[in-house]
């Protein structure tokens, strides 16, 4: 039986990927960020997941122009890093786990989530930067990935509560996959940031640290945060935080914190990171 062993949340700022790809990780601006993830990389070597269900939002890369799904799941054998306007990131192709994807998709739809299945797509920094942060520069990613994409950009996204319940359904789906697999669920995006308009650069440290606290100590209370709350408090792009609720809904009530990191800024964004383990 497959089982969810741990959950990770992390920002996925594209500039972090660029800093990695261009060898700038030791520069004073970037060093604190990469240092902040060092314990997680050490922990990851121990945890050794076989599959990561990576929940993120596409940034007008493979979705959003013609097709805007609320919840989508990749069902391909592989996903190529996209050219987002400055050439593709020089990172390995992401190997999928098509059997697990198909199983999860089936289970979620039978559980009355109206998923969109994606049979072919390129993936952007929302998926590859978290892999880089957790695994560093590698020739081959040490995990296979089931990508789940959430619309957070075009109003209205799904509610935080719907995301939480998708996470719970995800846990049921994984638990019924017959093969033995160590599976992690990652929620990427956030924390507070806004990259549009005169209010750009908004950072709400109080909101972010409270959110991190509640992810660990009182996660159920996060389900009630409304779209309006996110937009007002965490910025128009901070609403990416709803991807974290899918991860948290998929993890057990009693998941314990293994690592936490918070830093401002990376480019326009507050970087937040949590490692939770099902015990």
């Amino acid at each position: 039986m497959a089982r969810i062993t741990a959950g990770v949340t992390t920002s996925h700022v594209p500039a972090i990927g660029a800093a990695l790809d261009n060898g700038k990780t030791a520069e004073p601006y970037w060093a604190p960020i990469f240092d902040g993830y060092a314990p997680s990389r050490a922990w990851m070597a121990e945890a050794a997941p076989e599959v990561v269900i990576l929940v993120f939002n596409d940034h007008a890369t493979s979705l959003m122009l013609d097709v805007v799904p609320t919840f989508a799941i990749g069902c391909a054998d592989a996903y190529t890093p996209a050219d987002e306007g400055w050439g593709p990131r020089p990172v390995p192709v992401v190997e999928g786990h098509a059997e697990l994807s198909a199983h999860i998709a089936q289970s979620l739809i039978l559980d009355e989530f109206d998923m969109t299945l994606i049979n072919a797509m390129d993936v952007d920094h929302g998926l590859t930067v978290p892999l880089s942060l957790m695994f560093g520069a590698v020739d081959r990613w040490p995990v296979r990935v089931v990508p789940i994409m959430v619309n957070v950009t075009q109003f209205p996204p799904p509610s935080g509560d719907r995301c939480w319940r998708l996470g719970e359904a995800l846990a049921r789906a994984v638990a019924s996959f017959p093969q033995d697999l160590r599976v992690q669920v990652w929620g990427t995006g956030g924390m507070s940031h806004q990259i549009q308009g005169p209010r750009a650069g908004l950072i709400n440290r109080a909101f972010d640290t409270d959110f991190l606290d509640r992810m660990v100590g009182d996660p159920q209370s996060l389900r009630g945060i409304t779209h309006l709350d996110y937009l007002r408090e965490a910025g128009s792009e901070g609403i990416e935080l709803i991807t974290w609720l899918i991860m948290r809904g998929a993890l057990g009530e009693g998941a314990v914190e293994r690592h936490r990191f918070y830093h401002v800024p990376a480019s326009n964004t507050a970087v937040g990171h949590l490692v939770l383990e099902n015990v």
Partner: protein
Amino acid sequence: MPDLPYDLADLHDIPGTTIFTADSARRAYHLHRFCMSLMKEENRQRFRADEAGWLATFAMTAEQRDAVLARDYNRMIALGGNIYFLVKIASTDGISVAQAVSTMTDLDVADYTAMMIAGGRTPQGNRSIKGGW
């Protein structure tokens, strides 16, 4: 429409913030197609070689085209654009996202960067137009 725990009209009460909707997506469809064309190096070269010429191959409005030529991101957003599409223009220009973003604010890129390093723009007074909080 279901009952919601907030008033949808308040989405327009956030200072300096535009909500991207299905209506925006429709108005900006061809502008966005242009942005996504920049995901290929050959198209970036075409655009750099003849900006107006490449833009003319997309059925966007004259206002949208002019806003692209002027790199007026606030105007592009007012005309329906969403920043996740629009940053592909900044990437084509070889500038950072932060630099493009700074042009939408009251700060130049140096002051914007300094503000971010100092902890970012405060939410204080930036949450509600009518409330001023």
